[in-house]
């Protein structure tokens, strides 16, 4: 197939039976995930499909990534603010990617790293959360949901998945925020920023973060952090989407172009007019040519 040629894999047979043995209700189980029928599947995937930073340099078709996402907990809940750019190497594939994944009305997940990996596994997490709800007649806690995702990542450790996500929501224990990534790291915290532009976002966030922000201040902080990050990081940009997670669930509070935001706060000063003598000389030169 053409795609496989570009990806430089060579021919490998694909088989659908990937025995994932997990007991009890928390099985990834019935999920038949296609994997190459080679001896060392992890190595094969890692060598040919590694979406992690820099690993796909020599490929013609690079994976979609590049991002700034952030989330922080404050007294009134959680603010989630993300950009919407997807780059494949130097090519901007899209400026309108939805990087906040709405797992259910009370749980949000963010997308950073490999777009496909994030989107697939977070939707799968949504499936697992729904099954939990049906079985136990109550909503899953953020701790448990993030744990399910982290456990799935652990299963595929070494396969070259690339995912850095924040799982957040409001459950019985209040607003919660977890960072989960492709090597099954799972950390609980108050502030996280993930992606190529995260350092810029942290700079703004750490400077102005307070637990007792008002709703408006918190939203503004989320907007500014992304605005600054997208201004400096080439791999981030597009549209800033801001969500708020409260006791009654999440709501989308803002969606706007980051460029417009930036130049609204920092308009480019207009150039002073050229002095008369210089303007005249330039006219003559042009005539000669």
């Amino acid at each position, binding site marked *: 197939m053409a795609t496989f040629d570009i990806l430089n894999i060579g021919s490998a047979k694909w088989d659908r039976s990937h025995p994932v043995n997990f007991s009890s209700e928390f099985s990834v189980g019935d999920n038949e995930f296609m994997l190459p029928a080679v001896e060392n599947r992890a190595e094969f995937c890692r060598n040919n499909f590694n979406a992690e930073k820099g690993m796909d340099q020599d490929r013609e078709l690079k994976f979609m990534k590049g991002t700034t996402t952030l989330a922080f907990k404050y007294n009134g809940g959680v603010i989630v603010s993300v950009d919407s750019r997807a780059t494949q190497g130097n090519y901007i594939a899209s400026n309108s990617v939805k990087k906040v994944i709405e797992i259910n009305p009370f749980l949000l997940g963010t997308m950073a790293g490999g777009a496909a990996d994030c989107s697939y596994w977070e939707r799968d997490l949504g499936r697992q959360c729904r099954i939990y709800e049906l079985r136990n007649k109550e909503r899953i806690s953020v701790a*448990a949901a993030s744990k399910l995702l982290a456990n799935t990542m652990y299963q595929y450790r070494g396969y070259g998945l690339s995912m850095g996500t924040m799982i957040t929501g409001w459950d019985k224990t209040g607003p919660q925020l977890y960072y989960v990534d492709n090597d099954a790291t799972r950390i609980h915290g108050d502030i996280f920023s993930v992606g190529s532009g995260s350092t810029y976002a942290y700079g703004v966030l750490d400077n102005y973060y307070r637990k007792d922000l008002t709703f408006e201040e918190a939203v503004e902080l989320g907007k500014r952090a992304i605005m600054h990050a997208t201004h400096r990081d080439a791999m981030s940009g597009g549209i800033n989407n801001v969500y708020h997670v409260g006791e009654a669930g999440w709501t989308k509070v803002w969606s706007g172009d980051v460029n417009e935001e930036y130049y609204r706060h920092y308009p480019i000063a207009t150039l002073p007019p050229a002095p008369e003598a210089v303007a005249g000389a330039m006219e003559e030169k042009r005539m000669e040519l």
Partner: protein
Amino acid sequence: RYFTKMSYDRAITVFSPDGHLFQVEYAMEAVKRGSSVVGVRGIDCVVLGVEKKAVAQLQDPRTIRKIAKLDDDLTIAFAGFTADARVLIEKARLEAQSFRLTCEDAPSIEYMARFIAKMQQSYTQRGGVRPFGVSSMIGGFSKDKLPQLYLTDPAGTYSAWKAYAIGGRSEKAVQEFLEKNWSANLSEADSIRLTVKALMEVVDSGSKNMDLAVMKFGVPVKMVTSEELQEVISDIEREQEEAKKSVAESAPIDSTV
């Protein structure tokens, strides 16, 4: 490609023409041969009482425990085959810890009852195995601190009860006794009394023939000591004596018409 499989003459649990699963029903008979278990739900406590069958002279009584802990806040008592119960309880304990690991929270009593029931059901629908000859009563509390009592049986059904009895010579008699005498909002003392009275319907009196566990929210399960138990038993017997006496006194000694 040819299939070769071990051919059993028939699966162990199959339907009879009139819709019975005889193996399951026989398993329930096995439960009746076990010793009694009584469970009572009070207003803020759950009491599990078990019959202690007479221990042989040379046997160490401490090694026979019919009340076991599934988790910090969940207690189980079973009636039927001890060996089968041991296997079930072990699986349940593992599942409770697995739940704690995955969900970072304690499993609810309903979840555990459902798990045990699911386990028991799966052994009624597989070739080469027989059902567990065990019914169990699980005591615990909901997240809202309400006491809960769950029952599972060899068929794999589970249900919540206010009070129930399983196992022993006359399951039905004790169940009827409980139906007559249980009332809502029983205090801890009254729940213990009711449990002991129910057990005394089928068990010889004396604290060496019973074991009682009392569960309260947020507190480790407490086994009632034999002294305390004997006190309750003596008190009940005294009450019963007085009731008999007053009936005798109120009846005329010679009733000549």
